[in-house]
Each structure stands twice: as C-alpha cells, then as structure tokens.
C-alpha cells in the first residue's frame, strides 16, 4: 500500500511537471496554429528569472512570482516584432521560432558560462503523512498545476475574453468585423502562452539544474503531448501531457530505463496513428 501511494505521488508529480510545460505550448498551438519551437527557451527564461532573484539574495519567491510576468512580456515583445510575420506560414513559423529559441539559449549559455547552477526550492524539505514522506515542492507543483489548469480553462471557456479569443481563431475576418482587434488578441494569447512557459520554468528549475538546455529536454515530449492530445482544444494537450508524463514516469518501473524513453514514443505514435486527430478532436474551444 505504501509503495502504491508513493508510486501514485511520483507519477502525479512528474505528470504535473509535464502538463505545466505543455500548457503554454498547447495554448499557442491550439489558439494560434503556431508550433512554437522557442517554447523550451521561454521555459528557460522563467528558470533564469528565479536564478537571478536567488543570486541577488532575494531568495526564490520573487523570481517565481516575477517569472510569468517577465516571460509574458518577452513573449509579447517577440509576438509584436517577429512572430506575427509568420502567421501566414506555419512551416516558416517553426523555423523562425526555432531560430529565436537558439538565440535565447546561446545567450543564456554565455551568461551562465556553460555551467550548471543549482537553485534551492523556495520551500524545501519533506512532510510526513502516516509514516510516508512527500516532497513539499513537488506537492506545491501539483497544486499549482491544478489551479493553473482550472484558471486557464475558466478564462478561455467562461469569460468574454475567452469568447473573443475563440472568435478570433474561428473566423478572424468576422471577428474583426465585430470590432474585435484580432492583432491584440493574438498578441495577448501569445503572451499568455509565454507566461505559462515562464511559470513552468520557474517551478521546475529547483527540481532540475539551471542549464541552457533545461527546455530542450522537454521539448520533443511536449510536442508529442500536443499531437497525442490533439491540436485545437484546450483539454487535448493537457490530456496528452498527462499521458506522456505518466508513461515517462511509470514505464521505468516495468521495463529497462533505457527502453522506457523510446517506448513512450512508440506507444504515443501508435495512438496518434489510430487517432490522428488526437484524444480530443478540434473545434471545442
């Protein structure tokens, strides 16, 4: 029983990390049709914000709070200057965002001198329930992930802002005719996706090391999650990420760890082959 609870907690914790990272990617892919290859670097910038706040002697918290704002602002600036030129051509958008990501990554690598940096959890340690110990920070990540999912879903599906975003996506011409500034909506959506990436980076960096490649290691699995869940909905990528996260954490319990990684891809691609539209077909949000 103890083992089962530990197992469930570990899987849930890693799944939350995965969902958190995919959320921003999924929002931008679903709402705007852009596969943002710089997503990993937006995650990196969030992590870097926490590092700066920690280096300045302020501790991690100001960084965690500032990360979504800072990275959201970076996202806004990128959308205004570069990304909006790519809307007409999603393939070029992939290459363009990849180039942006490469630039951000190498700049941060230079700033870090190529080193890995450890960042302590703003709330460290473990707490015990009934003789079992759980990591405080992983629990915090699980809770924040749930709140962010709920908040994002309410924002996009239950508010007039969400209605405008969906309208701008569904039929841009009609939305403009109704007085919605689709330019502004796109800017804000991208900034929102970037802010989610920043938050993800800030929350996960204490679990890993800050290095320029922190975003890269999750990028491919994130795209797999979006494909698996289905582009065009909010729930799809979240479900996809949950599935990929659970497989990545769960498979090493039953197969050799070196086989687990490729197996995640094999299983996910098999599902995508059978259900090319993903878990949830487009058109809900």
């Amino acid at each position, binding site marked *: 029983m103890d*083992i089962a609870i530990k197992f469930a907690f570990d899987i849930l914790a*890693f799944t939350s990390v995965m969902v958190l990272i995919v959320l921003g990617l999924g929002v931008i892919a679903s709402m705007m049709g852009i596969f943002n290859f710089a997503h990993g670097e937006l995650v990196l910038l969030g992590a870097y914000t926490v590092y700066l706040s920690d280096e300045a002697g302020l501790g991690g918290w100001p960084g965690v709070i500032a990360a979504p704002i800072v990275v959201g602002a970076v996202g806004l600036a990128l959308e205004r200057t570069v990304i909006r030129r790519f809307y007409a051509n999603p393939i070029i958008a992939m290459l363009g965002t990849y180039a942006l990501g490469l630039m951000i990554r190498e700049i941060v690598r230079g700033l870090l001198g190529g080193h890995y940096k450890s960042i302590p959890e703003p709330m460290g340690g473990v707490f015990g329930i009934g003789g079992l110990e759980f990591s405080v920070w992983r629990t915090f990540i699980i809770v924040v992930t749930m709140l962010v999912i709920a908040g994002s879903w309410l924002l996009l599906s239950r508010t007039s802002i969400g209605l405008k975003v969906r309208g701008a996506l569904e039929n841009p011409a009609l939305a403009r005719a109704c007085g919605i500034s689709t330019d502004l909506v796109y800017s804000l959506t991208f900034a929102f996706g970037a802010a989610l990436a920043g938050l993800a980076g800030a929350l996960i960096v204490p679990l890993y090391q800050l290095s320029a490649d922190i975003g890269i290691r999750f990028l491919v699995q994130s795209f797999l999650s979006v494909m698996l869940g289905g582009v065009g909905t909010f729930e799809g990528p979240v479900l996809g990420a949950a599935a990929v996260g659970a497989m990545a954490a769960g498979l090493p*319990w039953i197969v050799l760890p*070196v086989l687990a990684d490729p197996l995640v891809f094999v299983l996910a691609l098999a599902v995508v082959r059978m259900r090319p539209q993903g878990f949830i077909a487009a058109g809900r949000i």
Partner: protein
Amino acid sequence: MTENMRGIGRRGLLKLSAAGWIAGAGGWVLRPSWGHAAGPIKMGIATDITGAIAPSGNANWQVAQFTVEKINAGGGIGGRPIELYLEDTASDPKIAVGNVRKLIQERRVDVVLGGITSAMRQAIKDPIVNRGRTLYIYPQLYEGQECTKFLYNTGPTPAQQCDRLIPYIIKTLGKKRFAMPSANYVWPQLLNKYARKVIEANGGEVVFEEYYPLDQAEYSATISKITDGKVDCVFNTIIPPGLQPFVKQLYESGFQKNGGVLSCVYYDENLLNYHPANEMEGLYSCLDYFQAVDDPFSKQLQIDYSKRFPDTKYLFTAGSASTGMYRGIKLYEAAVKANGGKLGREDVAEALDHASIPEGPGGGAEVVPGKWHCKMNMYIAVCRNDAGKTRYEVIDKETMVDPREC
C-alpha cells in the same frame, strides 16, 4: 546573372576561401617572451573551448597556459622556451579531427595534449598518433583500456579511483549493498565493470546496475529499487543533466538520513554548487587532487593560479582534466630534459616511459614503464555542509597508486 556578378562571384569565392584558410589556420598562439637559437618547442593543446563541455575545456587551456608560463619563466626546457598552440575541439569530434590536423600538419607541433571525453580521445588519437606520427598526452580521468603506443594517459584510471575507495566504504563505513545507477555511455559501463569486481572481491554485493538516458528527468522507479533492495551505498555514475533530479529524489527519499552513503568518483570542486548543500552532505569522492589537500606545493599552485586568473570561473580541479594537463606538461618537460633536449617522437617516448615529477597538484607522479599510464596519489574526500556552504574534507590518502592498465 550579369557578367559583372559572375566575376565577383568567382573571385569573391576564391578570396573567401583563401581568407577561410588563414582564419582557420589561426587558432591561438601563446608565444614565449624570449627566444633560443634552436627555436621554441612547439606544444599543441586540443581542447573544448566551445560547446557542451566548454567549462572543462577552458579550465584545461588556462592550466596549460599557467604551467607553460611557469616553465618558460624558469628558463624553458633545456634553455628552449615552449610555444603553445591552441585548437578548439568544440565538444564535437567531427570538428576536432580537422582542427587537430592543423596542429600536426601546419603547426608541426612536437606534442599534442588534450581531449576530455573518451569520444574525443578516440576521434583525435588516429590523426595525432598514427597518421600524424606525433606524441599524444590525454589528461582526463577515464574508463581505462587505452593502450596505444605514443599515447600517454595522465589522469586516474578505474583502478586508481576504486581500489581504495570501495574497500573504504565496505570495511570502514560498513556499507555492503551497492546500487550502480549510471548514465548510458562508455565511461560508466567500463568503470562499473571494474568497480563490481572490487566490490565482490571485498565481500560486498551489487544489488543492481542500471543505465539511463543522459537527460532522464524522473527516477522514482530507481529510488524505489534502492529503498526496496535495502541498498546502503549508491555508487553513482549519472552525469549532468540527468544528475540533479536523481540526487534530489534520492535525498527526498531519506536515503542518506537513514544511513545510506552516496559516492561518486568524478565529484570535484566544480560540482560543489551543483546541488543544494543538504543534498551534497556526506557524499564520498575519490580523486587525484582536492583543493583541500594539505600539501604546501599544491597550496602554492592554487595561490599562483588564482593570481594568474583572478576571479576565474574555470577552476584548477581534478575532475576537469586540469590536474592531468599539469602533470602531462611537466612529465613531458621531465622527459625532454632527461634525454638531453631531443624532440623526436621516439626519443621523447623512450624518456617519458621512465619520467617522473616530484611535485604537482596532489603530489608527484611517475609513468609506469611500458604501460602509458601514471602512478599518482589518490585521495578520498567527503563533502561537508557548513551552514549551507559545501566543502570537501580529505579523509584518506594513498601514495603512488598503481593504474593497473595495459
């Protein structure tokens, strides 16, 4: 295309390619401040100035400059100064092969030192030793089994890292059940093979040996095996970026709190800040040098190094091949001195086979004749946590440990 454009295109291309040659052959040169009628001794350094392991490569290059400057300031080798040539191997064996060839063919260096990863050594040893007919010194701690004529290894081998540490863990610390979580590449594979022999010979037991992708982010399955299997020593060879999540999850599982020992034989001063202090506390490492080693020569070396490179982020440590670089250059110096200044590959190799240096970081070293490896002092250190600041405390030393290779 107009006539005009074509003209520019062809000539421009020619010019461009010529410029490429010149820039490409540039590299970096560190010329001595004085000369000798017979000209300088040309030493080539091939290391990773850019790319994934640039921090180690830059430390290597700084230590090489530091050591050569010291030799030149002391009158060079037999009156001749050393001229130092650097080529960037860029953490990429494909780029490295071309750049190393420049050292050999254009610079015509007398010896090449460098390479950090085993993949790099494998890639550049042929252009240096076989096709280049030049002496090669490889400075990094590594998995052993490199027995190539004219290729000298000046870093520790698995025997040097395991022969003292593992019996210490089993006999002194009383930990007998080992887990070997490892990154999936050649160094952990071969090191584990040797370590397993030593563990079993000393009455210990390997509960599991497992390999992970280098960037694995989640280790709950491994941690559960460690707690289930009543493991009391983790012999870790996971490397960054997969390293930190593993160490964190191990710490969170309460492994150390319940008396478990974490040991990892590549941990040097660069890694002190890789984890929060409480996760590092009690970690055992075994290397040829720690900055905490109480040896006047080593201490002075560190003082001089920080004077030469004030506030540098590239430290003079054992893990980044820096001690091997120092040792390699000094052994080469000793060999050339011993054979009366002859620089031919066979002449130097013959002298190098019996070369020794009385002092160095962590102590002196001597080449084992016919084995292409060095005897050196080895130290066991444990990581201490002083109110959130980590440091190593040296707790055991063995002098002139045999590399047991070839």
